[in-house]
């Protein structure tokens, strides 16, 4: 389990799900943000415009009623100055230098009559002449020398002059900026927080799924008695675990049934076989005549073959149902194979065959010793039975990519074409084969039961090649692939 939790979080489904969720959340936030910004900007402008309209009316009244004497400029100027102090959205810390508000009165000919504001107002006057400003309808005015436009309201006075009141949009924009910044920071932290929540929640949920996956794969490999972990909550994942466990219950009971059938079959056949064999053996020493003993000996041999066939058939049947019972122990193939080859070598020599073995380092598997011994004996028996005199057999054992590879090659005639695809099916055998056609099926069944594979092919140079791959025992380091270890039959 530890090896799997260590995999990078960046590749986990939880990470992807949280990324997508966050993206969706962020998109939503941006839409809300734009909408709010628009709404706020519009509202601020509306308030500014209301103020401007109100003030320009007051100023118009004042300008109308004040007699046009020497004091006119001062009275109107002071009223305008006072009005500018009440500017909405005013930055409290800003100096009183009044460049955010201007007051302008023009004569009938459009010349400047009165200016209250920063500078001499010529630039503003030029801008006003270029723009039509309707009364009671505040308008944006771009004055050269100012980056930020002014909002300007105007009023016609009875004496034919016009007054203009302008307010810089600077304060308005500053308020908007400040709001945007706060909103941006808030939504960013919300998004990050949301991402974290989604990531943790999905990871927690998916860790249950991973627990189920790991337990299921463990069960698939070894014992059917354990179950995947379940949670108390009644959500989809808990239901998945429950469904899996129900399925495992059924599989276990089916396998148990199969075991009962094979056990009964084995028992019912073995008991009479034991009795017959024993009686035959008992009768042997009494027979002194060679010729008379011959049929008894032959019968015993037949019985042994029958027993072997029975065992193999049941093994194959159980293995094909993934129900073969294994008693695993550590086996070093590079100790077993030399013993096997040593055992078979004289028989091979006697038949005019030669055999060579290549083993690189310890190659350990956790396997059922009796089954693996019989599997290898089957492969060697095959060569011994089917190979023509003068041929060679090459056996190579090596560790590769977590698997113990046992490759057996010969330079005989190879498999009959068309037989290759059905090689591992029961009862398939070569035309000249005298066996019961279970040999390679058994090899396949054993490899499969151990989580391995068998492949058979005809070599390009002629001859057969069978490769058995069994998972290496845990903890045995995989030796780097050594090209010298891949051996081939020298012709």
């Amino acid at each position: 389990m530890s090896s799997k939790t260590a995999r990078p979080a960046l590749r986990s489904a939880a990470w992807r799900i949280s990324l997508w969720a966050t993206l969706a959340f962020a998109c939503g936030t941006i839409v809300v943000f734009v909408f709010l910004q628009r709404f706020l900007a519009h509202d601020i402008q509306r308030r500014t415009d209301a103020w401007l309209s109100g003030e320009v009316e007051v100023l118009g009244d004042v300008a109308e009623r004040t007699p046009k004497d020497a004091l006119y400029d001062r009275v109107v100027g002071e009223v305008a100055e006072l009005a500018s102090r009440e500017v909405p959205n005013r930055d409290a810390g800003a100096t009183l230098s009044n460049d955010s508000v201007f007051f302008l009165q023009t004569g009938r000919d459009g010349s400047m009559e009165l200016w209250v504001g920063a500078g001499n107002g010529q630039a503003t006057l030029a801008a006003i002449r270029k723009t039509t400003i309707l009364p009671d309808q505040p308008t944006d005015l771009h004055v050269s020398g100012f980056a930020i436009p002014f909002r300007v309201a105007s009023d016609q006075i009875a004496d034919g002059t016009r007054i203009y009141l302008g307010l810089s949009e600077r304060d308005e924009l500053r308020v908007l900026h400040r709001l945007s910044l706060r909103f941006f920071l808030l939504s960013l932290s919300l998004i990050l927080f949301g991402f974290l929540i989604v990531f943790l929640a999905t990871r927690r949920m998916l860790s249950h799924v991973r627990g189920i996956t790991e337990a299921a794969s463990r069960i698939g490999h070894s014992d059917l008695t354990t179950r995947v972990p379940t949670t108390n909550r009644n959500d989809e994942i808990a239901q998945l675990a429950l469904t899996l466990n129900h399925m495992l219950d059924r599989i276990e009971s089916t396998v148990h049934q199969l075991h009962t059938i094979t056990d009964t079959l084995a028992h019912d056949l073995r008991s009479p076989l034991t009795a017959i064999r024993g009686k035959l053996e008992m009768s042997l020493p009494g027979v002194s005549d060679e010729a008379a003993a011959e049929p008894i000996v032959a019968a015993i041999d037949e019985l042994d073959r029958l027993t072997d066939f029975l065992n193999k058939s049941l093994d194959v049947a159980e293995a094909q149902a993934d129900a073969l019972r294994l008693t695993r122990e550590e086996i070093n193939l590079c100790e077993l194979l030399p013993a096997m080859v040593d055992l078979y070598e004289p028989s091979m020599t006697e038949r005019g065959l030669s055999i060579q073995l290549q083993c690189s380092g310890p190659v350990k598997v956790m396997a059922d010793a009796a089954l693996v011994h019989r599997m290898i004996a089957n492969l060697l028996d095959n060569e011994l039975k089917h190979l023509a005199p003068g041929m060679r057999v090459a056996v190579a054992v090596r560790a590769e990519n977590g698997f113990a590879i046992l490759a057996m090659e010969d330079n005989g005639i190879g498999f009959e074409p068309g037989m290759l695809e059905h090689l591992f099916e029961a009862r398939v055998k070569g035309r000249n084969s005298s066996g019961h056609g279970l040999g390679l099926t058994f090899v396949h069944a054993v490899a499969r039961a151990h989580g391995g594979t068998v492949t058979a092919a005809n070599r390009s140079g002629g001859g057969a090649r069978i490769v058995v791959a069994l998972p290496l025992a845990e903890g045995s380091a995989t030796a780097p692939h050594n090209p010298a270890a891949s051996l081939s039959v020298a012709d």
Partner: protein
Amino acid sequence: MLVEDESDIQSFLRRSLEEAGYVVDCAADGKTAEKLAAEHSFDVLIVDLGLPDQDGITLILRLRQMGVQAPVLILSARRSVDDRVRGLEQGGDDYLTKPFALAELLARLRNLLKRNAPGAGELTRLRVQDLELDLLRREAIRAGKLLPLTQQEFALLEYLCRNAGRVVTRSMILDQVWGIRIQPETNVVDVHIYRLRGKVDGKGQQPLIRTMRGMGYVLEDR
């Protein structure tokens, strides 16, 4: 004591055990076996796992509770080796699958009895007629002449000598000499024996290694 419910098997086992020199008491079910065990003391027990009234393992455990110390040879026709049987095996008892060769049954009985007997000390030399094996130097001498044996051939001859006068089967040889647990389909063992015989039994000498057809091999001790 032999506990076996199938009368056919019981009768031939009894006969062959008696021929091999054992005194045999038979029981066909667990109850009789318990009664027999309470009345007599036995050197070794042979128990079939499939008894009509109770499981063989249960019987063995009950006998152990009754204070029966004798080693047990378990016979079974089942396919899988029960974990409980494996536990007994580790406790010094042995296990044999049906069908079996009589020779193998006898060999295992001898082993069980030997294990229980006071140790005779490790042998360093074996002598059978005019054949002598030096187990330390791994050399075999017959009639004063050193035999040119390979290590494997010496191991095979040693195994035959240790069981001189008794039949050993091919699968016993495979298990003990090569450590391989198979029922040979081909004549692999016979070829080894044939080669060994060529070196051990010279011309004009009395042949030592005899083939017991249908059973196995025996190294003659007289």
